[in-house]
């Protein structure tokens, strides 16, 4: 008979962003347990809310199958005493042993029959460890020093195999049949069944399925705005958060006084999104509307109290923002530059004032125009504004807005506005040339000065987000077409950056790893050239002559290496032997000045023929040396594009 299994881990509110990864781990570990212990069954469902992780599995067997195993004991020559000892250890008597012939001789042996254990017993034994093995970003203890750790206190546990309770205990909580409802909408306790748990939870104010919660929110958002010529600004990340901070989400529409729409849209959206978790609302033209959508963790707002309360909070927040905006704008933006002397960029590196000076110099070196230079100079002034102190996510953006409000031209203020872009792998790079230069110079300065000060990322530790800075540098150079050759780079930084370049072309731009390696071996400092060469190699890779030629290049490289040949002297034409050797020379010279793509076809048969007919290791040392020089020069000519010996080919050489 096959049985279904239900597990519910009930906790206090888990941070929304940790829930999905934890649920995935739980599911994987549980499936692995079923498989390892031969309990049969598959995880059929894994769902979570902020207060519960729930697993359902189906098709578990009642009891493990019995197993037979032949256990070898001491050699027969060890005598009856040893046999008795072995028998005792096996829980039997000597007369139950038999003698087994093996390649090493005769041994006492015991045919051990292990009884399969009941599935319920295995689960009861294994589940506490399994649950506590879930990896969380930060854990706590709640029962006192040295007790179990979890993300938040575990308050109840449900574990049912069919209709039977699977008994175990974690941190003083015994598993049972009783679940706990939504804090406001549900009963404090009620029984769950394997068959009907989702409906039983829903009757107690808990929508277990995350996708159902999300759909409920999305449907209600549409409903609230229907017929109003408004739409919610799409925001999948926020929607995810709202789905996982609620057990019973319900969307409500609120409004604010349209006088606040004079404030920059970025400020309003940040206040709504980051501080209040509201979706913002736009009209058909994409202008911000004086509305917001809040998602409650309850069923209804019958008296409008929740809407009223949220509107009141937002009003206070917007008033603060207005105060900061007006107050900050009373001061000339560039007068703040002096204050940056007192703002530390990094204790070992110095102040933001000093950093700004270096960034300006770098922008000049890159031939940035006066707008780019001025943007660089004032790029960090917003760090001293009240607005950024209160709403740190707005740094850069609000600096650009202050510069704009104070009459700076767009080329200048937009460069400040965009200086932290790209903020992620998918994020946009700055939209203007000036913006790209400022962002690039800022990031490059951060990398250079942190590495100089020994602040180098190690393993998963990267407190100054230098990997992200390096990735930004690479993306701006390549995607923004900014020629940049990484001035003043230490060997350590070069190695670090090289990894980011390789990662970018391989994992982001999806070039095959061997082509990336081959092209980078021919030089990677000029990323624009690198990208062009990658495109070329990618294009010629499928042509029939390419891989065989690449294989020959690998062979040439090996020959030169074995011969210890490292000279770059030219070969002498008069020493070439007529026939395949001379033909190879002619084929090489015939291709002079032609692009790689045109040379591969004619060259490949000549190279093959050469290896087929000509003995590199000629008895005459001059001839031998000349042949090595010929091969070496062939290799050199092509290696300005890529080191083709890095290409992985089918043919073995």
């Amino acid at each position: 008979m096959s049985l279904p299994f239900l597990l519910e881990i009930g906790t206090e509110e888990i941070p929304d962003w940790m829930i999905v990864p934890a649920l995935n781990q739980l599911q994987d570990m549980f499936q692995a347990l079923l498989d390892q212990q031969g309990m049969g069954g598959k995880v059929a469902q894994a769902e979570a809310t902020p207060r519960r992780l729930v697993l359902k599995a189906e098709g578990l067997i009642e009891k493990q199958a019995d197993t037979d195993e032949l256990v070898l004991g001491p050699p027969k020559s060890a005598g009856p005493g040893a046999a008795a000892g072995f028998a005792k250890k096996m829980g039997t008597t000597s007369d139950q042993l038999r003698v087994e012939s093996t390649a090493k001789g005769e041994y006492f042996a015991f045919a051990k029959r292990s009884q399969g254990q009941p599935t319920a017993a295995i689960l009861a034994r294994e589940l506490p460890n399994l649950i506590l093995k879930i990896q969380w970003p930060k854990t706590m203890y709640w029962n006192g020093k040295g007790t179990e750790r979890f993300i938040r206190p575990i308050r109840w546990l449900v574990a049912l195999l069919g209709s039977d309770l699977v008994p175990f205990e974690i941190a003083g909580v015994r598993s049972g049949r009783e679940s706990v409802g939504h804090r406001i909408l549900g009963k404090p306790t009620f029984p769950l069944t394997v068959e009907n748990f989702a409906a039983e939870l829903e009757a107690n104010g808990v929508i277990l399925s995350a996708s159902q919660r999300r759909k409920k929110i999305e449907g209600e958002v549409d409903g609230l705005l229907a017929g109003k010529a408004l739409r919610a600004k799409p925001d999948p990340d926020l929607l995810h958060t709202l789905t996982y901070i609620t057990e019973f989400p319900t969307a409500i529409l609120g409004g604010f006084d349209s006088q606040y729409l004079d404030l920059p849209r970025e400020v309003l959206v940040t206040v709504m999104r980051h501080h209040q978790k509201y979706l913002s609302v736009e009209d058909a033209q994409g202008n911000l509307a004086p509305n917001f959508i809040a998602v409650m963790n309850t069923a209804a707002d019958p008296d409008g109290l929740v809407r009223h309360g949220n509107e009141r909070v937002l009003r206070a927040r917007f008033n603060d923002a207005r105060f900061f905006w007006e107050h900050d704008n009373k001061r000339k933006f560039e007068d703040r530059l002096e204050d940056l002397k007192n703002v530390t960029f990094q204790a070992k590196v110095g102040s933001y004032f000093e950093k700004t000076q270096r960034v300006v110099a770098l922008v000049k070196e890159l031939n940035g125009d006066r707008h780019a230079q001025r943007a660089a100079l004032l790029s960090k002034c917003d760090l001293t504004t009240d607005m950024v102190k209160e709403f740190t996510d707005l740094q850069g953006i609000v600096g650009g807005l202050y510069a704009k409000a104070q009459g700076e031209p767009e080329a200048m203020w937009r460069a400040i506005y965009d200086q932290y872009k790209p903020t992620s792998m998918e994020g946009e790079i700055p939209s203007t040339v000036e913006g790209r230069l400022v962002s690039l110079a800022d990031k490059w300065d951060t990398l250079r000065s942190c590495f100089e000060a020994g602040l180098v990322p190690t393993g998963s530790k990267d407190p100054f987000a230098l990997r992200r800075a390096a990735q930004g540098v690479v993306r701006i150079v390549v995607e923004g077409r900014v020629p940049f050759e990484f001035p003043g780079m230490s060997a350590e930084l070069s190695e670090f950056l090289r990894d980011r370049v390789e990662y970018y072309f391989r994992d982001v731009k999806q070039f095959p790893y061997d082509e990336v390696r081959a092209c980078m071996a021919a030089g990677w400092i000029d990323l624009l050239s690198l990208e062009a060469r990658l495109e070329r190699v990618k294009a010629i890779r499928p042509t029939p002559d390419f891989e065989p030629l690449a294989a020959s290049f690998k062979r040439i490289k090996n020959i030169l290496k074995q011969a210890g040949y490292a000279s770059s002297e030219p070969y002498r034409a008069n020493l070439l032997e007529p026939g395949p050797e001379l033909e190879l020379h002619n084929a090489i010279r015939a291709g002079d000045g032609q692009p790689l793509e045109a040379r591969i076809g004619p060259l490949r048969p000549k190279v093959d023929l050469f290896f087929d007919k000509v003995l590199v290791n000629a008895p005459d040392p001059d001839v031998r040396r000349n042949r090595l020089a010929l091969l070496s020069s062939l290799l050199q000519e092509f290696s300005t594009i890529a080191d083709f010996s890095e290409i992985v080919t089918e043919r073995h050489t």
Partner: protein
Amino acid sequence: MTGLSFQETVFRLKQYWSERGCIIQEPYDVEVGAGTMAPETFLRVLGAKPYRVAYVQPSRRPADGRYGDNPNRLYKHQQLQVILKPSPADVIDQYLGSLKAIGIDLSKHDIKFEEDNWEAPTLGAWGIGWQVMLDGLEITQFTYFQQCGGFDLDLVPAELTYGLERLVAFLQNVDSVYDIQWTPDIRYSDVRYLEERQFSRYNFELADVAMLWQLFELHEKECQRLLGIKDVVLAAYDQVLKCSHIFNLLDSRGAISVTERVGVIARVRRLALGVAKAWMAETEPAEEDKVVA
């Protein structure tokens, strides 16, 4: 007036927690920046002795002063601080019960527990918890203490910190804390406006920076001296609080550069950790001294 008066709210919360075994303490009479810093929290959470206490703590944050002009920002605000050590398993239900006790019908509101861990580097203290959001307004900080004064805590206390002005402004449906009815006849501004205005002036404009630095050093020395003497750890801790408040004053005067800041914080922290260590040594018998039952 809708909702309870300010003082009635305080009475009810104190009554509620008193019924749940809390000592109702009076505010600590040395300036602190938060209820956590009062010895009733900072010292009592240490060690293996259960403790339950609730008190209103006026909390001074000089840099937050706005001369009485800002409807939501105050130089001094009142926190209702509750410590339940160890935290009971139904601590959140008890907390929700306290909201009902002050007239909040939870079936008509939206309550959420949003991740917000708490850390106070100057106290060597941190905890795990939430900000409790009522209709989008943060009304309480809820923390399971994990470490204090650099010690892992033997019993995990739950700390509930209610921001009273915000909470009551919400209950009374007023946009400015100054419009809160302290009693049915007297407004918050009648009680506190002058204090906000005058202390903002003092904190931002008048406090004598040279004198404050001298005071800081005097209190620091006194603390160090007391830490070398047995059985006066409470007096030593007062000196830590003095240093911490003077640091905040210097900060609001703009007298501490970013570079200095880290160093001064470290000095206060050293004192706080020293006090925690002395407290533990004097109140918690070391393992080997415990009588085996």
